[in-house]
């Protein structure tokens, strides 16, 4: 109260220092805010509708490198698919292998020598001809230089040599048969440019533009953490793309990406959540693409972690070595419920290990082998196998171990988190208590590699050639020493391994190979260590006022982003000019905004003065 009495009272309300401050401030603020957008509409317009032949794609990962030898991230490899060519490609519609730089190929009888006929009409973007020598050099460099093997070393692990006896012939000699010879996802680089590189480990291919390549687009600019720009290669041997320019813009936040699509700053976004896709459905000038999943969501059960030498480690629940218990767990889970509650219908319940979109390899259990959702059947299986129900509703194994299982779930994947909760509920129905550990991916990975888990979530994107994801469940993938495992389950089964070797050697008969692959999935399903739950849809959206048509892979039902090829971008057509850009121009909008801001500032100022006057009257 004392302080209040001493408070000085301004005599001339309008002329006091504070109000002058505020007035000045309001004026300055209004000036700045008003000036900015008014001066900037040119930029905004260029971003939205100005250039009809530019497609802007939002990406959420930063580029790690533009060197095909070291780039690991999906964003980088996708961009490299556009700017370099490959030996073979996958057909846009069927996903089948089609000729790429190689027009045709033949295999020796023992399957160890492959001879490819290379096209003679391909030139690099600097005008030099592309020959078999470039391809041989690319492969050989990966074979010989550890630093250059970082990204694609797995493809050439079996190579003895790669040679170019003449400009149109490529000869590859293998140490072992390999069915993936037509799935070598290695971008071919120009020897005459890259042989000058001293250290492949540190060379990022991001200083000199345009980057010499032979793909449908040429990388012409790169701003780290901001954008990558590509321009159409008008001499591309399959024909020039219709979009003249592609811009990949880095926007890490998905919600911000959605808003950028709405505002027209970007033309294509991917990886939407069901809620985001639902929100965009039916909006003007936006098309949502729901693609069948390339990826499966799964969980694995720890059947007892061990090394290749059979040394056991970790602390997995001992009862999980019992196949009956593992199968009962599968029977307790309702995959349809997951599809509806977690994915809002944007998913398929999973059967086999390979997603249904790969028709050749897809497999589904039939008849008695099916472990469909059936709580009663699951309970009966456990009763019969001697898992007695305890007083607290939790079963006890015949060995006397209480069935309390730890479940590790990635905390950065909302879908996994929801799935984990559902599974926890369902497993309680059959007398299994779940200790749900929703944790950082790093914690999860540590638990997996140390064998200190019971149930753990996982998921893989599957390539048209499934060799790798099948390979991680061979006995060979068990760790040599604890902590060095390649895959995501301590699975090791003699029959599975035999089938794996057979399919890998079956390089001449795709149908026969597919048959082996299906049998492998049957083994996985029956053992119930690796359990797929769903194939979630890929949800994407694009501006139909900018993109007239865009190729999905496979067609129909396929995806746009992350294709095994460059079809979405090389075959896309711009929307007819003039269809976009309705509504107020950016300049007009900016003017309105400035007026609003000024109005608010003036209002505030007026109120301030009024309140000052009122107090003076006290």
């Amino acid at each position, binding site marked *: 109260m004392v*302080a209040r009495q001493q408070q000085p009272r301004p005599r001339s309300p309008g002329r006091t220092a504070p109000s002058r401050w505020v007035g000045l401030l309001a004026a300055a603020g209004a000036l700045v805010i008003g000036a900015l957008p008014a001066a900037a509409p040119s930029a905004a317009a260029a971003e939205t509708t100005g250039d009809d032949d530019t497609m802007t794609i939002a990406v959420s990962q930063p580029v790690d490198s533009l060197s095909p030898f070291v780039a690991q991230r999906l964003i980088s490899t996708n961009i490299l698919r556009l700017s370099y060519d490959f030996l073979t490609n996958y057909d846009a519609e069927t996903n089948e292998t089609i000729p790429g730089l190689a027009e045709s190929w033949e295999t020796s009888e023992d399957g160890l020598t492959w001879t490819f006929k290379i096209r003679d009409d391909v030139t690099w973007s600097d005008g030099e001809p592309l020959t078999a020598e470039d391809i041989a050099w690319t492969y050989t460099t990966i074979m010989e230089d550890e630093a250059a093997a970082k990204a694609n070393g797995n493809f050439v692990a079996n190579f003895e040599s790669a040679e170019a006896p003449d400009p149109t012939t490529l000869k590859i000699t293998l140490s072992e048969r390999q069915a993936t010879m037509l799935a070598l996802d290695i971008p071919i680089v120009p020897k005459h440019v890259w042989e000058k590189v001293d250290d492949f480990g540190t060379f990022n291919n991001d200083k000199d533009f345009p980057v010499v390549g032979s793909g449908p687009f040429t990388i012409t600019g790169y701003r780290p953490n901001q954008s990558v720009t590509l321009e159409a290669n008008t001499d591309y041997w399959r024909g020039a793309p219709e979009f003249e320019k592609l811009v990949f813009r880095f926007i890490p936040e998905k919600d911000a990406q959605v808003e950028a699509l709405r505002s027209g700053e970007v033309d294509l976004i991917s990886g939407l959540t069901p809620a985001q896709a639902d929100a965009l459905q039916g909006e003007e000038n936006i098309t949502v693409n729901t693609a069948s999943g390339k990826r499966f969501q799964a969980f694995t059960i720890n059947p007892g972690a061990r090394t290749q030498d059979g040394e056991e480690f970790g602390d997995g629940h001992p009862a999980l070595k019992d196949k009956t218990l593992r199968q009962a767990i599968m029977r307790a889970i309702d995959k349809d419920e997951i599809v509806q509650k977690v994915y809002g219908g944007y998913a398929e319940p999973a059967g086999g290990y390979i997603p249904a979109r790969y028709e050749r390899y897809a497999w589904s259990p039939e008849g008695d082998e099916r472990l469909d959702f059936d709580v009663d059947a699951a309970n009966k299986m456990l009763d019969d196998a001697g898992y007695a129900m305890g007083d607290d509703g939790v079963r006890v194994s015949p060995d006397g171990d209480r069935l309390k299982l730890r479940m590790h779930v990635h905390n950065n994947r909302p879908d996994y988190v929801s799935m984990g909760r559902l599974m926890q509920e369902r497993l309680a129905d059959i007398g299994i208590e779940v200790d749900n550990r929703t944790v950082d991916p790093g914690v999860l990975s*540590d638990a997996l590699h140390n064998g200190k888990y019971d149930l753990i979530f996982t998921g893989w994107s599957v390539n048209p050639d499934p060799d790798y994801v099948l390979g991680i469940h061979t006995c060979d993938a068990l760790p040599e020493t604890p902590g060095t495992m390649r895959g995501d389950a301590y699975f090791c089964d003699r029959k599975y391994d035999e089938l794996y070797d057979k399919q890998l050697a079956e390089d001449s008969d795709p149908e026969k190979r597919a048959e082996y692959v299906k049998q492998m999935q049957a083994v996985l399903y029956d053992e119930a260590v690796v359990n797929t739950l769903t194939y979630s849809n890929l949800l994407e959206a694009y501006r139909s006022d900018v993109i007239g048509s865009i190729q999905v892979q496979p067609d129909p039902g396929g995806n746009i982003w992350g294709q095994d090829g460059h079809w979405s971008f090389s075959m896309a057509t711009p929307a007819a000019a003039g269809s976009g850009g309705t509504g107020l121009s950016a300049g007009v909008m900016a003017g309105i905004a400035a007026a609003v801001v000024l109005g608010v500032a003036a209002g505030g100022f007026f109120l301030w003065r009024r309140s000052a006057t009122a107090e003076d009257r006290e």
Partner: protein
Amino acid sequence: MGSPSTPAAGDTPAAPARSGVPASGGGTRSGPGDGAATGTAGGPDARRGIDRPRTLRLLRYVSGRLLTAAVSLFAVVVTSFFLFRILPGDPVRALTQDRAVTVEQMEAMRREFGLDQPLWQQFIDYCLGMLRFDFGVSYQYRVPVTDLLLDRLGPTVLLAGTGTLIAAVIGLALGTGSAWRRGSVMDRANTGVALTLWSVPSFWLGLLLIVALSSGAGLFPTSGMMSPGVTGTFNAAVDVAHHMVLPLATMVAVVYAQYMMVMRSSLLDEMGSDYLTTARAKGLRDALVLRRHAVPNALLPTVTLIFLELGRVLGGVILVETVFAWPGLGSLFYSGLKVPDLPIVQALFVVFAGAVIIMNLLADLVYPLLDPRVRS
């Protein structure tokens, strides 16, 4: 807000540690409220001592502060190394996640990153590198971290610097106004709005602004710092300014409260002082009394606060930068944490904490110049 009679001298928001900088090392000063608390006694007319003992005392003061800062900095360097080693997860596995890789490829990467070395060896290499300002090579970008830091420093300083400047000007003006008319509707509204905004999560506010002003009204770009393909210095500057409006607004909205509240409370403190009564008794106009006598004295704690905050704001922009894809140190830190890209997070931890330490030091050193009372 609370009852109108609540605002009393010294009711500063206790400068909560809300920024993204991990609370460590920095604390050589206790807090911005201190200055205000001492504000009632004495005046600028402190005795004019001479001489030796005073110079010596000043020297001791300065060297003491320098030593404290050096020790804190060293502690930060050590902490930064071990703190992030505790993070679970193997960076190589995280980087190659979902990709077909052989065990050999993974081992080669570990060798390249030096992760195959024993921890003490890694620590020594890290410390030696630090002496040369060499923070190692980023795992995910494959370029020296020092280059990345230099690249991203500009955008962050631009955003954080401009933001602090605007927030300080707004805070000072509103704080002065509020104190001058304490208890008025405007004062209560001001305080209420400021404290509400102060408690709003900045990423949420950012997204809200994006929805309302970018995609909704189409006034500003949703994210990034520049549109691709803009040429010319003037166009580029305008384009950057245009991109900066929303992140800046988000930042300012959240941080101006503390400047306002400190200014308000320290001016309230001053307003009870005898010297103001004297000044008014001499017949000076109130406005003049406020401008010439009260405000300069009340500015002291606020200026200190601005110094302290400059360090913290650098790290505090992490969320704002991430939401708006602003290519600065904050979004770099976020992308580094996701892997975890150890060289990046270590280096940025040192930079963020170091900035706080250095700003503390500067505040400590500048303070005696501004306030003679500290000298004696």
